[in-house]
């Protein structure tokens, strides 16, 4: 068995590890979206897990094939800009509509926003 060091093998190992990690995080995001009790925890798990999954899949594909690396980095930057905004907008619309929280919830940190009519929020 040939065990000498090669950059090709190292590159393929790192790339496939990143792709596997990303798809596993996609699986975990779907599972969290299916099993979590209320809308806030569902959005929390799914948004964060899919953001990390997309990061690592794009970076793994870029490492495996260097001709994809520029567009993969562009996609990563785009995802880092837009996915938290989309999650925040969805969460805000759910909170404004007074979506019910699960019964384990003990504290509402911005309890004034949903009930208060003043300020810049509305």
């Amino acid at each position, binding site marked *: 068995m040939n065990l000498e060091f090669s950059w090709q093998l190292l590159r*393929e190992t790192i790339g*496939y590890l990143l*792709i*596997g990690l*990303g*798809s*596993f995080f*996609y*699986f*975990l*995001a*779907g*599972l969290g*979206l*299916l099993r979590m009790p209320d*809308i806030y925890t*569902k*959005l929390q798990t*799914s*948004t964060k897990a*899919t*953001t990390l*999954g*997309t990061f690592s*899949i*794009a970076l793994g*594909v870029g490492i*495996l*094939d260097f*001709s*994809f690396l520029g*567009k*993969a980095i*562009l*996609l990563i930057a*785009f*995802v880092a800009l*837009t*996915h938290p*905004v*989309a*999650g925040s*907008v*969805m969460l*805000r*619309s*759910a909170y*404004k*509509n*007074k*979506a019910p929280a699960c019964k384990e919830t003990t504290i509402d940190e911005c309890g004034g926003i949903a009930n208060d009519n003043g300020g810049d929020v*509305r």
Partner: protein
Amino acid sequence: MSGSLVIDWIVFIFAGFGIFFSLLRFLKGPSSFERLAAVDMMNVMFTGIIVLLAFVSKNNMYMDIAILYGLLAFIETVVFARYLEGRAKTIEKKHMQNTEMKSGEAK
């Protein structure tokens, strides 16, 4: 290259399970916010799967498709979320008008 083919199958199966769970949540979600969250997550996972397709088929054009799909998914999510939020605002405005009318009658 059979080892990399097995890894591709495993990766696509994991991502497919993620999309399948999101689809189940979309079908049975009690409120429309959960359906919106499920659609957004499905769009994000489709973006990642298009990137994987670009790697499997060695075609550089799929990366452009992934970037455009991500842009359109973001616009879709923001538009639907703002629509649901605006619906809440109009409902609350009607409620406030009703309470003002009732208080006016009481006076």
